[in-house]
């Protein structure tokens, strides 16, 4: 659209023709109030707050529905307009309960703000207000009808944004009321059967929709708001955690993303919004545990636990060699921790026996893309893509943000979505064409695409550019074939769907027996030459380590944030001859068998970076705090120290540090330390005085890991920075263990909307939501069978 120039309050503004006046004004810093207008949703023009005066038009116009054109003249602030807005607020307050002192929204309520601004504080309304009792629609959503101002944001968000359509409106005039979708039961109109994303609560401008986990807990100004990254799935949503002082540290009371930072904007799913409470679980480990002489785990001090663990590790390394020890890494720890873990395994223990619970075959992905740059798609690319081919996967359940972005892109930008799947997935409603892979399966996909006979393959071929997103259905050779197909065409980029918050980071950071960080083979000559005593031969994969344990050949196993006993459905007795050290949040099936259990901090209680499955790296800021636990980074440094290593060879801190930390990287709790470090920097002193500072490891990652050349300004400002996997190509003759020979190493988690592996199990909120969903399902099946 060509740009047009128009006048607002005497200021000349320029915007593309057809832009909504409210958007153009907001972009120019002119505030126009609105309740019903919400960017990205359909227009409502119901609240009449955004009224402005347009020259030569008799009535006041709503800025949310007025599109700008050349030469128009608007006035947005005048006594007439102020009076109109004040009157609207007076009318709203006529039926509004004015219980601000107990309302959750008090302090961050749009109605409250407007009332202060336009001064409608005195009411002339003496009639009795409409009252309806509060309703609980689900464990997550409460509805307080009297507070509702009927802006319909929730209805549109649920329908258009989420494609769930669980909310609607009943009655008319002053009796209008928002109702959830479950009707006709004894609690008709009071239950919600939906994805429980909580977006309706998030967009509610007042306190009408409140969150089951946050309501009546605190006030907005009593919290610190820390912007970090969600720890659940691998989409990497930015999340703002509301944190408050507690007896044993500081607790998280709320999660949302109202500042709309990050790739996800204001979107969060049920897991991100309500599933943070696993950190408060009563089952959380807060003291190290050491197995005593009678074979029972008993609480111990950190010093004792580290001494026991390192004593045994050192003894086994020195007597039986490093290869008698195995290391299992985590899909949820930060990049710095994963990097440090493999460096610890390779240089301190001296073994390549390191692996993680693979949920996706990133090694094959990196290998197939070797030698090509610009062929991976970031989440931002997907959000703006003209055409997307989604093969396999079930984004609505496993990647809610991806599903949201695809839906939004189709709805707002008319993107074309093509779906090839062996199941019917919800996103098919947005698809331009679908290919049913129930017969033939994913092996037939490429033949089918190349055939050029079906409508589907014709449509794909007609696309000038394409992003191919594929799920874990593709492993090993299948990944290579799919990518080879795409590389033959111009403008095809790829994304591969993994499961956990840092699955990609674990792979990128070399938690592989045969690959160093950046997918460099351990056998490559000269690789990571600065590592002292790097073993040259590939080590054992996770199943091989477990086999070795069963055979009695594995002296010790260090497990960081993983649960191989449950994940591989292992017979616990095979670990009886192995000294087992587990770093975890909970006493999982694996931790219960351990000789030493070290309580670890969750992702919400540490700093660092994580990489989502699309390769977008983001900064993690420490939000909460829990007495007794330590970040895995610190635990690893302590283990190395306990084994008699000069830890500065492991973490380049002190004088070895390279670039300075300007202090933006850590959370609210470390404000003092941050100011201190700024002062140190300004005085030419070295800010990284601690070996526990993960950013020291980030410097080394940037220096040594191909593909991790980071735009630090962007990263530290809280934005996402895209990275690409770099790996020597197939022509080098190197075949990663996982890539072609053992696709069975990949075991996908298949999480649902309300499950998130070990973390989800310890989340009360997610448990309740899962139960609620099961109840609703049972009820609807009962109703169906009664109807038959």
């Amino acid at each position: 659209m060509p740009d047009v120039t128009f006048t607002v309050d005497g200021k000349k503004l320029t915007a593309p023709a057809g832009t909504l006046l409210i958007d153009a004004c907001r972009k120019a810093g002119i505030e126009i109030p609105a309740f019903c207008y919400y960017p990205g949703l359909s227009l409502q023009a119901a609240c009449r707050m955004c009224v402005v005066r347009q020259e030569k038009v008799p009535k006041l116009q709503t800025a949310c529905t007025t599109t700008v054109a050349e030469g128009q003249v608007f006035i947005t602030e005048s006594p007439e307009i102020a009076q109109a807005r004040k009157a609207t607020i007076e009318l709203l307050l006529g039926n509004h309960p004015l219980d601000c002192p107990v309302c959750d929204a008090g302090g961050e309520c749009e109605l409250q703000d407007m009332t202060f601004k336009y001064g409608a504080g005195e009411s002339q309304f003496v009639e009795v207000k409409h009252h309806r009792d509060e309703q609980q629609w689900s464990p997550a959503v409460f509805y307080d009808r009297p507070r509702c101002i009927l802006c319909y944001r929730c209805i549109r968000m649920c329908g258009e944004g989420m494609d769930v359509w669980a909310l609607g409106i009943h009655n008319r005039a002053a009796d209008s009321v928002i109702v959830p979708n479950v009707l006709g039961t004894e609690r008709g109109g009071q239950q919600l059967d939906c994805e429980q994303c909580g977006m309706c609560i998030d967009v509610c401008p007042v306190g009408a929709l409140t969150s089951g986990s946050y309501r009546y807990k605190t006030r907005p100004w009593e919290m610190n708001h820390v912007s970090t990254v969600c720890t659940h799935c691998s989409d990497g949503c930015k999340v703002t955690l509301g944190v408050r002082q507690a007896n044993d540290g500081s607790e998280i009371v709320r999660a949302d993303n109202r500042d709309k930072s990050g790739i996800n904007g204001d979107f969060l799913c049920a897991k991100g919004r309500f599933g943070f409470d696993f950190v408060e679980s009563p089952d959380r480990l807060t003291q190290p545990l050491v197995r005593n002489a009678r074979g029972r785990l008993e609480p111990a001090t950190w010093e004792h636990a580290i001494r026991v663990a390192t004593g045994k590790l050192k003894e086994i390394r020195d007597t039986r060699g490093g290869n008698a020890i195995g290391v299992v890494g985590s899909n949820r720890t930060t990049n710095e921790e994963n990097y440090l873990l493999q460096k610890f395994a390779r240089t301190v223990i001296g073994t390549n026996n390191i692996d993680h619970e693979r949920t996706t075959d990133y090694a094959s992905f990196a290998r197939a893309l070797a030698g090509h740059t610009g062929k991976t798609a970031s989440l931002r690319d997907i959000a703006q893509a003209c055409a997307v081919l989604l093969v396999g996967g079930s984004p609505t359940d496993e990647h809610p943000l991806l599903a949201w972005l695809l839906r939004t892109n189709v709805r707002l930008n008319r993107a074309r979505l093509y779906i090839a799947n062996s199941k019917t997935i919800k996103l098919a409603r947005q698809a331009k064409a679908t290919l049913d892979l129930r017969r033939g399966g994913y092996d037939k996909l490429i033949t089918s695409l190349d055939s050029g006979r079906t409508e589907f393959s014709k449509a794909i071929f007609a696309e000038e550019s394409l992003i191919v997103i594929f799920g874990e259905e593709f492993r090993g050779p299948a990944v290579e074939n799919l990518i080879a197909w795409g590389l033959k065409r111009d403008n095809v980029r790829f994304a591969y769907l993994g499961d956990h918050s840092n699955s990609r980071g674990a792979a990128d950071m070399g938690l592989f027996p045969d690959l160093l960080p950046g997918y460099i083979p351990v056998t490559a000559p000269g690789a990571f030459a600065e590592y002292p005593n790097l073993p040259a031969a590939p080590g054992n994969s996770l199943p091989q380590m477990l086999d070795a344990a069963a055979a009695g050949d594995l002296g010790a196993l260090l497990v960081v944030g993983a649960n191989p006993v449950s994940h591989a459905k292992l017979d616990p007795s095979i670990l009886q001859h192995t000294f087992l050290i587990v770093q975890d949040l909970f006493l999982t099936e694996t931790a219960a068998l351990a000789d030493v259990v070290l309580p670890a901090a969750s992702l919400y209680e540490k700093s660092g970076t994580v990489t989502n499955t699309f390769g977008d790296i983001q900064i993690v800021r420490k939000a909460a705090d829990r007495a007794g636990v330590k970040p895995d980074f610190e635990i690893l440094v302590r283990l190395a120290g306990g084994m008699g290593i000069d830890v500065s060879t492991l973490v380049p801190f002190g004088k070895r540090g390279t670039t300075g930390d300007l202090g933006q990287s850590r959370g609210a709790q470390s404000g003092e330390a941050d100011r201190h470090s700024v002062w140190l920097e300004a005085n030419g002193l070295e800010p990284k005085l601690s070996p526990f500072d993960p950013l020291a490891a980030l410097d080394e990652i940037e220096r040594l890991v191909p593909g991790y050349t980071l735009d630090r300004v962007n990263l530290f400002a809280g934005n996402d920075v895209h990275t690409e996997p770099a790996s020597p190509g197939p022509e080098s003759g190197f075949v990663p263990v996982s890539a072609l020979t053992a696709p069975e190493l990949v075991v996908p988690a298949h999480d649902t909307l309300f499950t998130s592996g070990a973390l989800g199990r310890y989340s009360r909120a997610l448990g309740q939501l899962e139960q609620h969903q099961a109840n609703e399902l049972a009820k609807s099946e009962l109703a169906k069978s009664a109807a038959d």
Partner: protein
Amino acid sequence: MVIDDQTCMVEFALRTMSFYAHESCGWCIPCREGTDWLKKTLTRFHAGFGTRSDIDNIQYLAENMLGRTFCPLGDAAAMPTIAFVKKFRKEFEDHLNGMPCPFAREGVPQLTVV
């Protein structure tokens, strides 16, 4: 509209507003809340429990609905109400002495209010 000169204009205003309050779809704030508020105030006022400030308030509300609503239903509710207060202020004031409607008498049929 043709109205008998015996008709109480406050009652007529109430009858009109009851219609619009019932018909309002509830989409936009000025119409949804305004018609409801006016209906409630007029009901109380007509029953003899009004105050002098209510008269101004009724006019104020109606004037603030006029031209601000999504569709013309709100305008249609506001315009006659403004006219009733402006042209028949005396009849509104006659309702102020705490009595039931001064125009209620034998033989004059009551307007039904929904």
